[in-house]
């Protein structure tokens, strides 16, 4: 029943896409200046059917309808309701349907919200967006249909991978999808802008809110993913430079570059073609990331059941998309002969883009190089965290410096400013204090710390200034502040992290340099969908003599049978105490990983600040438009 209904809805959505493509092609040729009402109506109907098909899948999951292969493979009646719901997008087929829903949602929203008067621009955006929708709907129907039927109907499902049964991971994919699938709308708009030749300011105004929204969701999505990795994977790390993580970071770099370039475009100073290239590149990177994650050509912690036929489809799509975009770009791109003054705000923004593209290139090279080397020469190498840290860390210094000084330069001017001012004095003082507290003797690390302090100090001064002048546009300040704090806390966290690995039996005690760890008790528990062994550990700090109780678990999930190691984390404002235990087979010895991770909460808060800046800008824009 649900299966048929779902299929019918998807097919209706597909048909409406064809109708919309047909209408927009016809409208494009007429001289009529208004978009006919039927296009709006059809777009709404398309949204309705597309969302309904997703709701049907959701219902199938909630009521555990195992006549759907997809539900059978990824759900189980024993699962808590929350994870039944999140199971909908915890697999390839379901998430593809979610992906299509976002394409359709953004297409409709753009049509209704965008106030641009150029009819051709809007019609063409709708056209390109619907081409994307058609392609993905066809992919869904022929290769990855979540509504495929199963007969005879099994009584019980196979269950959801336990490491996906987690609140952070349940909301992580929708956030990321809004982020990088959302970038499709400015991809379409960029191509439409080229053909309809709208001017730079209208283009900037048209795509800015969408860039802001997708950037915000991408940032928060990455944050939630990191938090998940931190407490679920049980290694105490939050970023592993894993190919799947890199796939979410690559579009983020381009979005960030785009976010800055639009400011230049908005003021008609230039960068028209460049903004279009970035818009195309963002969605290209999103699709590339999807390809890398789902084709299974990479070895990653975050496995997605992979299948070469999917990879082939996404790759072909990517290829057609890129070649078509390049073709349109070269055919329609206007000639620009803009020159920029050296010490103007716009040249600092260009410098930002230079760094973002460089970061993108590093991550892209690091991720793809092993694949290419393997294909060409057959030898396998690994590119892990050391590579990225080694190459990227030194470049943080000039980036932080540019972020500090850039924003205070004026548009289209060439006024050189003196660096010696109060801010620098305060920063140096703060740095010296930090230096004596930390006693870190690495030159590079000290430089990074200094420049992040410098950025934070400068933005705090800016914040004070702008509050004094009642300037409500503080989004840049908040975001830059967030970034400065992020870098600062990442490195301080790195310097002060303590990690001890050792083996312990029940009742034994281990003394490390700063702590005493006592293995007090072992207890067995049985919960709805898993059994677990809980260890009781008491940790006492040798300095403060305070004691903490930590209870890590080893869980055995029954559907499917999987063992997970749950870290126990005691978090206070300044520091996290982190403990995982794992049993060594055939013995009564447990391997204990004990970590103290200072400032973890500050890292998360910094990223929140960073993203908050983006969303503030979004609301600001609304205000400005109304005035």
């Amino acid at each position, binding site marked *: 029943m649900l299966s048929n209904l779902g299929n019918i809805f998807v097919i209706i959505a597909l048909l409406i896409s064809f109708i919309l493509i047909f209408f927009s092609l016809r409208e494009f040729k007429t001289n009529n200046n208004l978009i006919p009402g039927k296009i709006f109506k059809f777009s709404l109907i398309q949204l309705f059917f597309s969302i309904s098909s997703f709701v049907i899948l959701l219902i199938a999951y909630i009521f555990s309808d195992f006549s759907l292969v997809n539900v059978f493979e990824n759900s189980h009646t024993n699962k808590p309701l929350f994870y039944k719901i999140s199971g909908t997008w915890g697999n390839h087929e379901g998430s593809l349907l979610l992906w299509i829903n976002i394409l359709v949602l953004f297409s409709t929203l753009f049509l209704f919200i965008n106030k641009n008067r150029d009819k051709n621009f809007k019609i063409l955006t709708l056209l390109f967006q619907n081409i994307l929708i058609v392609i993905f709907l066809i992919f869904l129907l022929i290769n990855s249909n979540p509504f495929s039927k199963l007969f005879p109907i099994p009584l019980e499902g196979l269950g959801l991978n336990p490491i996906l049964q987690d609140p952070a991971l349940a909301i992580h994919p929708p956030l990321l999808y809004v982020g990088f699938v959302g970038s499709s709308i400015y991809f379409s708009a960029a191509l439409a802008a080229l053909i309809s030749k709208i001017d730079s300011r209208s283009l900037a105004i048209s795509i800015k809110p969408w860039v802001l929204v997708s950037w915000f969701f991408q940032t928060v999505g990455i944050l939630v993913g990191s938090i998940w990795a931190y407490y679920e994977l049980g290694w105490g790390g939050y970023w592993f430079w894993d190919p799947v993580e890199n796939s979410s970071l690559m579009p983020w770099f381009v979005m960030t570059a785009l976010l800055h370039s639009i400011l230049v475009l908005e003021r008609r100073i230039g960068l028209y073609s460049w903004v279009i290239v970035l818009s195309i590149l963002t969605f290209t990177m999103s699709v590339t990331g999807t390809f890398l994650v789902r084709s299974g050509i990479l070895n990653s912690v975050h496995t997605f059941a992979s299948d070469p036929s999917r990879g082939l489809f996404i790759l072909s799509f990517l290829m057609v998309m890129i070649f078509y975009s390049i073709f349109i770009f070269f055919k329609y791109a206007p000639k620009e002969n803009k020159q920029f003054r*050296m010490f103007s705000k716009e040249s600092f923004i260009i410098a930002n883009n230079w760094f973002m*593209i460089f970061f993108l290139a590093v991550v892209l090279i690091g991720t793809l190089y092993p694949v290419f*080397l393997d294909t060409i020469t057959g030898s396998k190498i*690994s590119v*892990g965290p050391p*590579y990225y840290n080694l*190459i990227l860390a030194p470049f943080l210094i000039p980036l932080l410096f540019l972020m500090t000084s850039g924003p205070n330069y004026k548009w289209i001017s060439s006024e050189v400013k003196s660096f010696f001012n109060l801010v620098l004095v305060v920063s140096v003082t703060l740095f010296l204090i930090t230096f004596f507290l930390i006693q870190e003797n690495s030159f590079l690390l000290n430089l990074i710390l200094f420049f992040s302090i410098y950025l934070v100090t400068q933005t705090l001064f800016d914040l004070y200034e702008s509050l004094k002048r009642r300037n409500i546009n503080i989004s840049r300040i908040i975001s830059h502040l967030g970034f400065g704090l992020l870098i600062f806390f990442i490195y301080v966290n790195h310097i002060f992290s303590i990690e001890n690995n050792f083996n312990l039996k029940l009742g034994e005690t281990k003394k490390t340099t700063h702590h005493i760890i006592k293995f007090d008790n072992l207890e067995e528990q049985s919960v709805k969908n898993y059994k677990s062994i809980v260890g009781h550990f008491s940790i006492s700090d040798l300095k403060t003599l305070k004691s903490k109780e930590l209870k890590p678990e080893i869980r055995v999930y029954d559907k499917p049978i999987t063992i997970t190691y749950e870290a126990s984390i005691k978090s206070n404002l300044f520091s996290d105490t982190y403990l995982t235990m794992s049993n*060594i087979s055939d013995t009564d010895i447990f391997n204990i990983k004990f970590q103290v991770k200072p400032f973890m909460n500050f890292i998360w808060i910094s990223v929140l600040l960073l993203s908050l800046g983006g969303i503030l800008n979004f609301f600001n824009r609304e205000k400005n438009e109304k005035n």
Partner: protein
Amino acid sequence: MKNIISSLLLFFFITSVSYGNEDVTDQILKNLRCLVCQGQTVSDSNSEFALIIKSVVKDKIKEGKSEKEIYNFLSDKYGDWILLNPPLKKNSYVLWFLPYLLFILGAIFLFFLLKKPKIRP
């Protein structure tokens, strides 16, 4: 030439390789891929393979072997796939130098964008 470049690179960046107070064994284990796992490091894994590698690395440190000797030993036995920090050699020149090359190309491009005399005043 190759040695000069790599030693220069090392001299400049060495600080970021060996920072912190982590002990050497742990640092090494973090730079090794657990071959039987999915994208985990040896340090983070408790698989049979990782446990043996851990104890072997500990033994080698006790024997007084240097970090580099241990990496060489393991890559000799398992190939470069086990090293998360790809060593600088013929098959990784592109990997290590392309990013810098691109950065410099970007700089040259920007230089012309900013410096060229204005066509229209």
